[in-house]
């Protein structure tokens, strides 16, 4: 697969990773970010591009279970990684508990920030460092919401955390 603008002077880099449980081996130009790879050639457009500069969190995905900003990662640097995007968390028939809680708590309006919020929230839960509502707000501060759904987002996360940490961790895997 040839991804990115053509430039024959620079060799393509063979890169292998698992995305949402599926194995990929791709020939990539080194300047393609994970975010552009996901949204472009792989047609996984659930992950959103807000700022493209690490300032909004819309592009949050899980790499080996940890939340990061996909806009600031070169895809080639992730050789060997296991990547989970919003598409890999649940399906309309069988939603991830975090997805369900976001719906139940009305935790979005336009929905643009939501895939990033949900991936971030799942990363947050598995980190296991939340002891208070203030912790949820602080540890979700890397995800901006222009619609200001913050209160309901925190409610949804609190709800899921109340349901038991282990269940969430298993569902994320």
């Amino acid at each position, binding site marked *: 697969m040839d991804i990115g603008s053509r430039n024959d002077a620079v060799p393509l880099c063979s890169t292998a990773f698992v995305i949402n449980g599926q194995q990929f081996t791709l020939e990539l130009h080194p300047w393609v970010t994970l975010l552009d790879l996901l949204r472009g050639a792989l047609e996984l457009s659930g992950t959103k591009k807000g700022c493209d500069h690490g300032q909004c969190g819309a592009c949050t995905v899980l790499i080996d279970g940890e939340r990061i900003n996909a806009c600031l990662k070169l895809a080639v*640097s992730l*050789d060997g990684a296991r990547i989970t995007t919003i598409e890999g968390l649940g399906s309309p028939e069988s939603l991830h508990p975090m997805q369900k809680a976001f719906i139940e708590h009305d935790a979005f309006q336009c929905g643009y920030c939501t895939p990033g919020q949900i991936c971030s929230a799942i990363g947050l839960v598995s980190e296991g460092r939340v002891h208070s509502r203030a912790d949820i707000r602080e540890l979700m501060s890397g995800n901006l919401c222009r619609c200001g759904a913050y209160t309901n987002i925190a409610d949804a996360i609190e709800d899921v955390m109340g349901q038991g940490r282990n269940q969430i961790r298993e569902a994320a895997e």
Partner: protein
Amino acid sequence: MRPFSYTRAQTVQAAVQALASDPQAVLLAGGTNLIDLMKYEVERPGAIIDINRLPLNFIDDLPDGGIRIGALVTNSSVAHDERVRTRYPLLASAILAGASPQLRNAATTGGNLVQRTRCYYFYDPATPCNKRQPGSGCAAIGGVNRIHAILGASDSCIAVHPSDMCVALAALGATIEVEGPAGRRDIAFSDFHRLPGDRPELDNTLQSGELVVAIRLEPNHFAVHHTYLKLRDRLSYAFALVSVAVAVELSNDRLVDVRVALGGVAHKPWRDRLVEAEFAGVVADEEAFQKLAERLLSGAKGHGGNHFKIPLAAKAIVRALKQATSGRLQDQAAKSVQ
């Protein structure tokens, strides 16, 4: 982004060699600063050397009771390491005051040290900037300079170093281990970052081909009386306008050893050991703190938009010293004092 070639270094020696032999090459760690700057074409490397596979992801105890943190340990892993939390809580607190959880998961110890300024003009290739393009001028002097330096600036550049982690490391007096074509050497933390002078393009004293391998911290008596106070435009996910790292050793209400490092005010984390020494043995009260703040800021100079930082820094120093000496540390989640 401009096209570049990409290689993964497998050993520190190979990375050093690749870096030293190609003036167009740069190191890639977490990428959170470098990739951002490449998108703006502020950085235009011809070659990227990915150092993420190097064996520099360790936190080791040292025989003297100190600690050694590898250059590739992420900011999150440092901040949440049990040894760092108990023995160097000031460092953990400063890291958690910075960026966002996602960014801290990617950002590395080495990258945080070497990250570049957030000066708006540095980021905008359409404007003059001596740091980005030596000799082109400084658009911040006489321009919008709300976030700029009040201490140690020059006529060439008034940028500040943006790191929170480094302010704590300055107070704690870390040592930086680097490896270059000539082998390994240690750099004292206060000698690592530079003041701009007439060479603002140089942020630090790394020589060509040198790579940060690790940082070391000595054992200390600051785990009880310390605080990292960060003031910014919003409570989270924003760079410091002014920050203060304080580490104090107290005996019978007197200051035995007091260290005050300032962030957001200069081209490097700002510390003045001579001023600190003047306060050894002094009773730890508000009057002393105010005097110390005055002394630390005696050379402060505003540039218009950033005048407010001078009184802000004075108040922040006093508050941080009060918090530290009373053992009430700054809670980086609730933003309150415990």
